[in-house]
């Protein structure tokens, strides 16, 4: 059966599924440590920038989306300091895992991969913002598609 996930994300999921709980935690910390590297780099420009503080997240999150002529997405993300460690880890995982996917593919990605990566024990009350970054990436993709549709109709 064809994977529902873009290839880079599938590779990350497979990697995590083979890890013990302790190894998963270590890998998640490593991904969380690299979250700051997912911020926009000097000189980059974007098709869409969405920076906001939502009620359901503990701090401000900025989503920056660039889409190539071949419809390949590149995401950059900025996180406020109060964002939880799991959310930081998921930021790095998603920036890498969704790199090159089309906006349509991103909208179709089911969220059921999160427990596969994080482990069922860590997805629980008070750690639900682990899903938040994916929601924001989908939101940015949806806005871009709507703009594209509107531009086509004009």
């Amino acid at each position, binding site marked *: 059966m064809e994977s529902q996930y873009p290839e880079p994300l599938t590779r990350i999921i497979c990697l995590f599924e083979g890890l013990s709980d302790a190894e998963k935690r270590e890998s998640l910390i490593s991904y969380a440590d690299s979250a700051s590297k997912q911020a926009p780099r000097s000189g980059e420009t974007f098709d869409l920038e969405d920076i906001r503080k939502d009620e359901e997240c503990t701090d401000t999150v900025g989503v920056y989306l660039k889409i190539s002529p071949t419809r390949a997405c590149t995401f950059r993300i900025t996180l406020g300091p109060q964002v939880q460690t799991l959310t930081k880890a998921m930021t790095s995982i998603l920036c890498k895992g969704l790199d090159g996917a089309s906006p349509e593919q991103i909208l179709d990605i089911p969220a059921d991969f999160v427990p596969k990566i994080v482990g069922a024990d*860590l997805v629980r009350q008070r750690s639900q*913002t682990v899903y938040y970054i994916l929601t924001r990436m989908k939101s940015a993709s949806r806005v871009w598609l709507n703009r594209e549709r509107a531009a086509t109709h004009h």
Partner: protein
Amino acid sequence: MIDKNYAHPEVLVSTEWVAEHLADPCLRLVESNEDILLYDTGHIQGAVHIDWRSDLQDQMIRDYITPEKFASLCERHGISNDTTVVFYGDKSNWWACYALWAFRLFGHTKVMVMDGGREKWVAEGRHLTRAVPHFQSGTYLPATHRKDDEIRAFFDQTLTHSKENKPLIDVRSPGEFRGELTHMPEYPQEGVLRGGHIPGAASVPWKMAVNDDATFKSAEDLRRIYEQEAGLRPGDDVIAYCRIGERSSHTWFVLTYLLGYKNVRNYDGSWTEWGNRVGAPIERN
């Protein structure tokens, strides 16, 4: 020790005091957080991690673990009955106070809180390590029973308390108290059907008790908030609640240890039980 005219200044220690006592064999530092991976990213040297859910709560019943399991948890972390446990953590010590309250449920009396919690330690640029300490096993004689009847309130007791117009302190945000929000600000919905508060409860958000640097306010300030403004009186029989009992354990700590109230209970079922419970009356105003 910190003394801002608190009733029990011996339970509150500064970050500086902790830094000076890292090698004290009679102390055990316990970090307890909401952020489930925060301890793994770095913690105070010698601190062990106790998780509010996986370590302290029974996984199959909405309740706490047995005294025997608690004794086993302590022994694993090198904690004996006479060890002084110093709690600290994120979110201005919400979970540190929750863990301390749970330790008191099991009769552990030698407890302290590091004022300002993890935020203050980090803000001061103090050292964190990822090295997980391993201690020789402690010797812990389990309590004969949990002290549920002393510092914990259940639904029926809270209902009776409400009907008798005894003091109830709702420590949630004003929006939750008024019933405009069914989740904490900045958090996703956690499964509550109705918004509002327990009839007769006074709204005193937990955050009123702390300064911007996460340290506790002085006793004078706390008395103004809880007594002059909320109407509590020393000697009152008080029940505090929030959504799941962690923010209210922070207020339980303030009333019990900093202001010296002797009859304060934490209703840990809180709004996730009351707001969903068939037949439970609510108020919205």
